[in-house]
C-alpha cells in the first residue's frame, strides 16, 4: 500500500478511527451477507482505513494499470453518498464460480454472466455497508441499481473521483481483505459521503 503520499487531511486521527469503525461494521455485515449468499465462509477483514485526496485516488491504491472489477452504487434517501467496490479479477471470478455452482476456472475471461453475478455481489456488499451506516445514523439510505466496470484501476477510479471532485476534496477508502479457503484477496470499498451525511457521521461519533 503506497500510503506515502503526503497531504494535509482535514480529518483528525479520532475521525479516522471513527471511519474505520464504520468500515468494520460494514465489513461484518458484508461478511454475513456474502457467506449466506455463497454458502461458503467468507471473511471480510478491514486492515486499513484512510482518507485520500480525490485527485490522487487513481494512484494511491497501487498499480494504476492493473485490471480490476468495480461495482458502483449511489445512495438515495435522507442520507446520500456513493459506494464503490473494487475487486481483483481473481476473487471476482472465484465468487462468481461459488455463486453459480461452477468449477473454479481462474484463467477464463470475464463473461456477461460474470458481470451480472459480480454486480449482484457488489450490490449486496455495498448495501450491507450502506445499511451499517444508515443504522448507525438512523437515516434511510437506499442503494441504486449497480453500475459495473472492468478495466484499469486508474480509469475505473476516475468516475467516482470525477463525481466527488465537484464537491469534495477527500474520499474515504476502506481497504478490505476477502478471506476464503485460507487465501486472502485484497479489495477496496470506497465510500463517498455527501456533506450532510458526513456531518451526521461526525456528530454521531462526538467529533465536531
Amino acid at each position: 500500500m503506497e500510503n506515502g503520499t503526503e497531504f494535509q487531511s482535514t480529518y483528525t486521527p479520532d475521525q479516522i478511527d471513527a471511519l474505520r469503525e464504520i468500515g468494520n461494521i460494514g465489513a461484518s455485515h458484508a461478511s454475513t451477507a456474502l457467506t449466506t449468499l455463497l454458502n461458503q465462509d467468507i471473511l471480510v477483514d478491514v486492515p486499513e482505513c484512510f482518507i485520500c485526496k480525490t485527485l490522487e485516488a487513481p494512484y494511491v491504491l497501487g498499480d494504476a494499470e492493473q485490471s480490476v472489477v468495480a461495482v458502483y452504487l449511489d445512495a438515495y434517501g435522507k442520507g446520500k453518498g456513493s459506494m464503490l467496490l473494487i475487486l481483483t479479477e481473481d476473487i471476482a471470478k472465484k465468487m462468481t464460480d461459488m455463486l453459480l455452482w461452477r468449477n473454479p476456472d481462474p484463467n477464463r475471461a470475464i463473461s456477461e454472466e460474470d458481470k451480472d453475478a459480480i454486480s449482484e455481489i457488489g450490490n449486496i456488499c455495498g448495501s450491507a455497508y450502506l445499511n451499517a451506516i444508515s443504522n448507525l445514523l438512523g437515516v434511510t439510505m437506499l442503494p441504486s441499481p449497480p453500475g459495473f466496470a472492468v478495466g484499469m484501476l486508474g480509469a475505473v477510479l476516475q468516475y467516482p473521483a470525477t463525481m466527488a471532485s465537484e464537491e469534495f476534496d477527500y474520499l474515504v477508502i476502506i481497504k478490505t481483505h476477502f478471506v476464503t479457503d485460507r487465501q486472502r484477496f485484497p479489495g477496496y470499498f470506497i465510500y463517498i459521503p455527501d456533506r450532510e451525511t458526513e456531518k451526521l457521521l461526525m456528530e454521531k461519533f462526538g467529533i465536531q
Partner: protein
Amino acid sequence: MEYSDQMDSVRSCERALTGAIQTPISVVRPKVNYLDKDLIVGVGEYKIVSSPLELMCIGLGSCVGIAIWDSRIDLGGLAHAMLPAYDEGKDKVNASKYADSATFLMVDEMVDMGASRSNLKAKLAGGAQMFSFSSNDTLNIGQRNAESAKAALKKERIPLLAEEVGGNKGRTIFFTPKEGVVRIQKGSEITYL
C-alpha cells in the same frame, strides 16, 4: 523540479516564461510541474516538454488526454482533464482539471514558451464510459469531456488531426511531441494516432 542532461533544450523555454503571463480566465494559476522525472501527467494536470521527451497519461477513463504540439520547435503539451467545463465546475482554483480551461491555459503557456499559435495541432484520446448502468439516465461524463475539449480547440482555432474517444475501456497514452504521435494502449491492443 528535477532536470536531466537531455532537458537543456527546454531551459531556454523555461526562461521565456519568467515574463508576464496573460491568462484569458482570471484564476489562480494551477501548479504545473514541468519536466517531471517520470513525465507522467496526473489527473487534472498538464505538462509541457520539448523533444525528445515523451509525456504519458496512465489510465484515462472518463478523463480526456488533450495533446497539442508545435512541430517546428518540437514543443508539445499534454493535458489530463477530468471534468468538462470550467463554468459548470464548483472548484474554481484548479482550472487545469477542466477540459476547456486546461486547453486554454496550456495553449497560452506553449505560446509563451515560443510556439506559434498557427502551427499548433491537436489530437484527442479518452472519454470512455467505464461504468455500464442498467438505467441510462446517468450523464456520460466521458462524452461531455470530449465534446468540451473539441469545442475549446475550435475556439482556439487549433486543428484536431485525430481522435479516439468513447468506448468502455480505459486507455494509457504516450505522446511524442516531435512527430505529434499519440500511442494508445487499450489492454493489449495498441493503436497510433
